[in-house]
Structures are given as C-alpha cells and as structure tokens.
C-alpha cells in the first residue's frame, strides 16, 4: 500500500544530497556512531528516530561538522555533500554551516531584534550589497519561516519576546536566511505546544521543495507525519532506513518494530 504514488506528495527529485560512508564517531572511548552508511536525498524530509542516547544528534552534527566544536569528539569515514567531502581540509566549517543550517531543540534567538537575528548570517557571509538588499533578504527569510505576518510590524522588537513557537520559526527563518541547501533540525518541536508544533511541521513540509531537511524527533507520529524517509538508530547503529510508509507499516528489523510500536525491545 505504501507504493501508492498518490499517498505522499511526490518527491520531486531523488538524487543524493548527502552521502555518508563508514562513519564512526568517538567521544574519547565512547563509540557513539558505528559504521553508518546512508544516502540522504535532496528535496526530501528525512527523519532520524531511535531511543535516547542512540546517536541521532551525534550523527546529525556530523553533517555540518558541529562535532568539530567538541574537543573529545573524533569523526571517521566520509561524508559528501553534492559529491564533495565536507571533511576535506580545504572546506571552511563556517561556510559549510551556512550551506547546512541547523535548528536546535530549544529556540535560541540571539538577544537582539527580530531583524538582526535574521540579518546576522547574511551580514557575516556578505550576502547583501546594501541596506535595501538586506531588508529584502530579511523579509524573504521571515516569509519562508512562515512568521512574516506575525512580526512585520515589530521587526525591531527583541526576538526573545516572541512566543516559543514563534521563536522556533524565527530560528528556522534565521537558518534559511543564508540560503542553505540542507536544514538539520534536532527535535525542533520538543519545546512547543501542539499548535506551534503543527505550524512548524507545516513549514517543514513547505521547506522541502527547496531544501533537504533532516529532522531528529522523539515523536514517532511526527516522523510519520513530516518525513518521506525514516532512519532508525539503535546503540549507535543505523538499523533500518527506508521509505517512511514502509517503516511505519512493515518494518523489516525487529528492533525497529519494537521501538515504533512501543514495545520492550
């Protein structure tokens, strides 16, 4: 039944955006990610699910080299973005993170105005030639973040004064302001109420016609709702990766089955 092409909005392109091969991650002696291989398609929402501590966040952080900022963390293996190895010495991690944006669990707007929250990235990456240019980038990002209508009259009010759901959409807008190609989201809705969660999910669905979105979520229902691909991690292993419909109706591995049906594994 999950072969039905009408069931899910068609995935525009299935070419690979990110390709990871034999990835290992260590925190000191802790082997957190064990030989993970995965191809993440472009213009698709890919969900990472699995019990706490299985390595979802660790693996997500590999995709934009956020683990570089953790001293004891060591990453092995190859991760390519559009066929280019992101761990190559010539790659500037700051540039990389503009291309592979990240949204965190707790909305973390800068203690600045709404406008400056969005303008920050484009300014440091020199994306705007002048003030009018920057205004346009800010408006476009806020529209993409589905929050423009709520903030357009108070762009110079502090971002921290928004509600939790608005702050999270502001953070998504901030992440898209640098024109990324991939958006990584680590439990972006876990601090939000159901309405704000629905708004963010709706936004994620819209974002996928431009970006490749990878979302870590604790909510199985959220993974089923927003993603087209689902990867199940367990004890640092990528146990099963497939179409979301298949994973949720007919998982092939008993560990996946136990986890998504809420059984003692």
């Amino acid at each position, binding site marked *: 039944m999950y072969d039905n092409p009408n069931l899910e909005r068609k995935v525009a392109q299935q070419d690979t955006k990110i390709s990871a091969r034999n990835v290992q991650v260590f925190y000191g002696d802790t082997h957190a990610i064990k030989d993970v291989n995965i191809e993440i398609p472009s213009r698709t929402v890919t969900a990472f699910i699995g019990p706490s501590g299985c390595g979802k966040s660790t693996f997500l952080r590999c995709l934009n080299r956020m683990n570089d900022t953790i001293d004891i963390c060591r990453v092995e293996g190859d991760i390519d973005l559009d066929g280019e190895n992101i761990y190559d010495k010539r790659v500037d991690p700051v540039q990389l993170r503009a291309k592979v944006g990240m949204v965190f669990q707790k909305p973390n707007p800068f203690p600045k105005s709404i406008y400056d929250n969005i303008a920050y990235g484009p300014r440091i990456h020199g994306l705007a030639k002048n003030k009018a240019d920057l205004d346009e980038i800010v408006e476009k990002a806020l529209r993409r973040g589905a929050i423009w209508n709520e903030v357009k009259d108070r762009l110079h009010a502090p971002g921290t004064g928004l509600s939790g759901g608005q702050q999270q959409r502001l953070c998504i807008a901030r992440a898209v302001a640098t024109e990324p190609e991939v958006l990584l989201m680590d439990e972006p809705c876990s601090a939000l109420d159901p309405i704000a969660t629905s708004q963010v999910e709706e936004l994620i669905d819209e974002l996928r016609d431009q970006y490749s979105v990878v979302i870590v979520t604790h909510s*199985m229902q959220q993974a089923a709702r927003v993603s087209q691909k689902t990867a199940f991690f367990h004890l640092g292993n990528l146990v099963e990766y497939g179409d979301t419909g298949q994973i*949720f*109706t*007919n*998982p092939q591995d008993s560990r996946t*089955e*136990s986890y998504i*049906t809420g*059984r003692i*594994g």
Partner: protein
Amino acid sequence: MTDSQHIVSSYDRDLEGVQALIIKMGGLVETAILDCAKALELRDEELAERVRKGDKAIDALMEQINEETAFVIARRAPAASDLRVVLSVMKMSNNLERIGDYAKNIAKRAGVLLQMTPIDGASGAVRRMAREVELMLKDALDAYIQRDPELAQVVSNRDKEVDQMYNALFREFLTFMMEDPRNITACMHLHFIAKNIERMGDHVTALAEQVIYVSTGKMPEEDRPKADSTPYEIHGDPMAGKD
C-alpha cells in the same frame, strides 16, 4: 508480529480485546454456517429460526469491533504490526458479518423449502459444501491466532474446491429443472443457497488473506484461480458443461 509486550500494558489489553472479539464472532459465524445447512437438510424450522435470530448477535459484535478499533486508533496511533492488526480486524469483522448474512438468508430459504417436496440429494450436497466452508473458516481463524501465513495460504487455495462444488450443484439443479418444471421454485432457492455458500467461501478467502497480511505485512499474489465457470455456461442446454 512481535511477541514482546508494549511498555504501556493497557495497549496490549486493548489489542487483545479486539482480537478476542474477532475470534468470538468467528465462532458464532461457524455455528451459523453449520446450523443453516443442518436446518435445511433436517427440515428443522426451529433451528432455521435460531439462525435467523442469531444474526443480530453477529451484527452487534461487528459494531462493537468497529467501535473498539476506532478507539484504539484514536488513543494509540498504532504502527507497524499493531497497525496491521487493527486494519485486519476491521476487514475480518466485515467478512464475518457478510458470511453471517448469507447464513441468515439460507435459513430463510430453508424455511420456505420446508413447504415443498424435497429435491433428491440436494440438501445433503449443500450441507457438505457448507461443512467445507466452515472448516476453511475454522482453519483461517486458527491461522490468525497462530499468525500462520502458510496455513492461511492453504485455506485460500481450498476455495477452488468450494467453487467446484458450486459448479457441480449448479449443473445438477439445472438438470432437475429441465426434467420437471415443478422443481423450478425449489431449485431456484437451492441454487441461491449454493451460491451463498460459494460467496461465503470468497469471504473466508479474503479473511485468510488478511491473516497473511497481518503476519507478513504483504498481501498474497493476486492471481487466485477462479474455478467458478458458470458465468460462461449456456443455460439453455442441459448438457452444457457436462463432459
């Protein structure tokens, strides 16, 4: 199907509850199949009446199963094998309810046939056919309880035999009607009865396919041979199909 339990144990109880209802409904339907054919053969109006009245209990169970599965969906958002259990339970209760309706219809016709001269050997043959369908249903329900897709496949294959029994009866009734037009009314009823049992077999087969789905996550291949050749027979020729 994983044997291990849910972390939330009331979830296990919910799922076991609806499955127990299916088994209970299946038991009532098995009895209805046997009893309607027995009432016909033994010309037992009291038994026929019991089958006709008993259909209400079957319908009520279907209602209850529908309500409880809707509740499980709303409350638990079942996934994977749990989702397949819920989906299959809904379909199977539908199949069982239809079989119950056919049994009731047969019991009605059995009541009418009481008032006519019996047709030689016909009701015995009908009862053998009903017995075969009831055995298929019993095996399908066993296959469900044991999550045994192979047994379910065997049941599904057996439907051919029911189709063949129906074909044979169909020809026989045709011959009787040709021989003596006074047999026409009784034979028409008997023919509908045989047809009803043949349809019961189809529902048992659909139910067996749900067993395969619930245990494997896949529906069986869709080229089950249909052995019912009566749509192609030339009804004006009593020798048609006799070979």
